[in-house]
């Protein structure tokens, strides 16, 4: 399926709304195994994405993704800023060649892995992105599949980022970045795939 500019814009505006709605929850999740700032980091970043996107009257996919990347890079800070920023930057580059959703999200995942050096199973946002990419390859991305991927971070022990400092104590908690990425993809399902 193709990601048109209009759809891309609607997708990211929906993502922003979800982040604002769940800001406190994301920070609480981060408080448990990190430093409690993931909600405010993402709220600040997606707010800036919204400001950038609302200026675009005739959205074009690569431009929408690039504007999102710039906003996230310059406003989020922390670990998630460069990670989401790199994801959207890679997607924007890929969008110049293709607007196939699977290929775009796959490029985004590569951006995250390149920046953060995390693998599947390290209890990071990669654990949401990787199964999503697989589901998209089969044209089978659903909200259930997303929830399943996010929930699967619970039993994992964190090996990357701040949460790795609490070691064993991270077991049993959801990874905040995996949850915020979950919102990104539920927004994708709602605005684009359904």
């Amino acid at each position, binding site marked *: 399926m193709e990601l048109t500019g209009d759809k891309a814009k609607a997708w990211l505006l929906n993502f922003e709304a979800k982040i604002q709605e769940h800001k406190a929850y994301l920070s609480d999740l981060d408080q448990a195994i990190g430093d409690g*700032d993931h909600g405010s980091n993402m709220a600040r970043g997606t707010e800036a994405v919204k400001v950038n996107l609302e200026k675009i009257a005739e959205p074009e996919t690569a431009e929408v993704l690039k504007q999102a990347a710039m906003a996230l890079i310059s406003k*989020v*800070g922390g670990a998630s800023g*460069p990670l989401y920023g790199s994801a959207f930057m890679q997607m924007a580059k890929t969008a110049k060649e293709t607007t196939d959703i699977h290929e775009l999200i796959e490029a985004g995942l590569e951006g995250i892995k390149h*920046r953060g050096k995390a693998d599947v199973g390290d209890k990071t946002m990669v654990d949401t992105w990787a199964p999503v990419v697989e589901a998209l390859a089969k044209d089978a991305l659903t909200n259930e599949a997303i929830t399943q991927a996010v929930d699967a971070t619970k039993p994992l022990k964190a090996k*990357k980022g701040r949460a*790795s*400092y609490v070691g064993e104590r991270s077991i049993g908690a959801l990874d905040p970045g995996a949850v915020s990425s979950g919102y990104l993809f539920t927004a994708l399902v709602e605005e684009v795939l359904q």
Partner: protein
Amino acid sequence: MVPVFKAKEDKIMKKIINHPSQVVDEMLKGMLYAHSDFLEGIDETRVIIEKDKQPTVGLVSGGGSGHEPAHAGFVGEGMLRAAVLGEMFTSPTPDQILEAIKASDTGHGVLLIVKNYTGDVMNFDMAKEMAEMEDIQVASVLVDDDIAVEDSTYTAGKRGVAGTVLVHKILGHFAHEGMALNDLKSLGDALVTDIHTLGVALSGATVPEVGKPGFHLGESEMEYGVGIHGEPGYRRDTLKPSREIAKELTGKLMSEIMTKKTKKIGLLVNGLGATPLQELYVFYNDVIEELAKYDVEIVFNKIGDFMTSIDMTGLSLTVIRLDDDKRTVALEAPVGVLNW
């Protein structure tokens, strides 16, 4: 308006501020009003930079706010050229770091001094890539002095804490003397392997926007090995006398530093924000008595608040290997900064 802020659980956070979200910007403005004789800001950024830039490699450091006087208090002749301030306890963003790099370059390149935290590492890396695209030579030195964390592939590695300030001072001196970027980088990479730190906390730090301490310790509890954002340490215990804390920290730090047959060391006793200077000296007294057990000479010391954690009660002890006298000379050279 009554200057109190309702935190979660209805506890009142008492701070002399106007609004939690304004703290970083208002602090920055205050610093610039106070020290405009040698410091300036860069419009639309949270960068503090020295006014008079020598034609040498510029040292740029920074990180989340809340560690004052780090890092802005170390900007000036003979130390940092610029500091980038992030949100409270959150790494600054690449665009801001990039502005600091551009403004710090005099054609001799820029050296980034980064504390080893995932966020800082990635944001400084991105800024470095962006600066290289603009043809500025950039190198970076990663500080990871906190030995409370195991360095393994299963963690994000050892954290960068108070020892970072010693790196600023030593590399700042050599940069001021005209050392080239590559040489500063090799010197810095070797230096960081000879700096070790351990901290203890008696209470957690309160980020204004969060409104409650990042972790909670019972009335008579303390924690060994905490990080400067309240990251968990290696053990919780009942509060011990200074002498026993000194014994534990000194023992662990010395066994690390003695793996290199060290003869001369320097010490940094650093307050975490809400510990009175008198306690730092009580602790220093105990450290010195403890060190009598070892065959080492103490050739340098610093006692005070250098890398704080907002209002955390506690301190950290840093031991640096100073067998190479050039390092000691660099530590002792005069500087034109606010808080060394």
